[in-house]
């Protein structure tokens, strides 16, 4: 899914670069609401994990492979703004060090892979988890659907960019149909990886999944046994506070 240099002409690539820089600037500010002392280290892990899993191309038939994009996973685990930043970090490292995705196409890739996926997956995931029962299985199902849908939409974003500034004379409809058709299948893999990963974190520490943190049962106040002189009371308050 990483666009190489040359597919899209310079003006559209440059425009996407401007959009990407603006998006990152907004995300750097908005991430403040998401980055508490649990989300910040999780965001580091999310970037590392997505880098690793993006190396694992899986076959989708017809001599084609796909790999995780990660926008849904990142948004569900650490929030949409922080998630988009985490994917952007991965894309920048891939372009600079691994020649994966062109340098002039970096803005296009950040727009498509970091921002479009998150913009699709996050609202969809939140809509689903508000409607569904509050259970791990339901949240994994919502993760699957949000991730699945995000991939063909991201592929459609490429088709739109190609329609505006593609270095070729192919019909936009042909490119759109081919991109969406292929990426619906890849989206199944995206959904599976996302659901399994979110499920694993939910099993270990549900409060580390920012996308459902407000839906978790309120933590019980861990009051210290009422022993003697009451000096333990202030201490127990500190321990019980969400941190």
């Amino acid at each position, binding site marked *: 899914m990483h666009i190489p240099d*040359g597919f899209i002409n310079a003006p559209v690539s440059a425009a996407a670069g401007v959009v990407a820089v603006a998006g990152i600037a907004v995300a750097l500010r908005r991430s403040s609401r998401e980055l508490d002392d649990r989300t910040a280290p999780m965001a580091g*892990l999310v*970037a590392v994990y997505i*880098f690793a899993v993006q190396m694992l191309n899986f*076959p989708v038939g017809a001599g084609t492979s796909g790999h995780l994009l990660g926008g849904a996973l990142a948004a569900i685990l650490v929030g949409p703004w922080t998630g988009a930043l985490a994917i952007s970090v991965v894309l920048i490292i891939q372009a600079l060090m*691994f*020649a*994966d995705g062109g340098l002039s196409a970096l803005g296009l890739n950040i727009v498509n892979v970091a921002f479009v996926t998150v913009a699709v997956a996050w609202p969809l995931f939140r809509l689903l988890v508000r409607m569904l029962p509050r259970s791990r299985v339901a949240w994994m199902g919502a993760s699957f659907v949000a991730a699945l849908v995000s991939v063909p939409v991201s*592929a459609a974003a490429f088709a739109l960019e190609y329609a505006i500034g593609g270095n070729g004379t*192919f019909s936009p409809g042909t490119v759109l149909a081919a991109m969406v058709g292929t990426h619906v299948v890849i989206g199944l893999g995206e959904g599976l990886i996302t659901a399994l990963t979110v499920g694993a974190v939910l099993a270990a520490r549900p409060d580390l999944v920012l996308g459902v943190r407000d839906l978790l049962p309120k933590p019980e106040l861990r009051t210290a046994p009422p022993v003697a002189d009451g000096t333990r009371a202030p201490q127990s308050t500190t321990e019980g506070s969400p941190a």
Partner: protein
Amino acid sequence: MSTVRRSAWAVIGIGLVVSLLLAGGLSYYASSHPDGLEKVAEDVGFLDTAEDSATADSPLSDYAAAGVDDARLSVGIAGLVGVAITAAVAFGLFLWLGRRHRAEPAEVVPDPATTP
């Protein structure tokens, strides 16, 4: 509080180990078929408009460590180095951002108590 922090870091530690295993080991078994975009470009006919990246000569280009002949070792090294660099950049960025945001809460949410 310290127990809560420790187990969160345990989850992160496990995640990092899994990432190292995936990038350093399992990556060798990844499908080498063209990915979705590349296949579409080939089928529709615009694959030949692709140009080499300016970083195509870098030592880890295409997830292969330059000068390492063994394919398994080559991709494994590239994956491990990539994980290490991503970890350094991402943990550095997000821990710094988190601290900075907490240090300037007024910029984030204006406190009604201090703004009459």
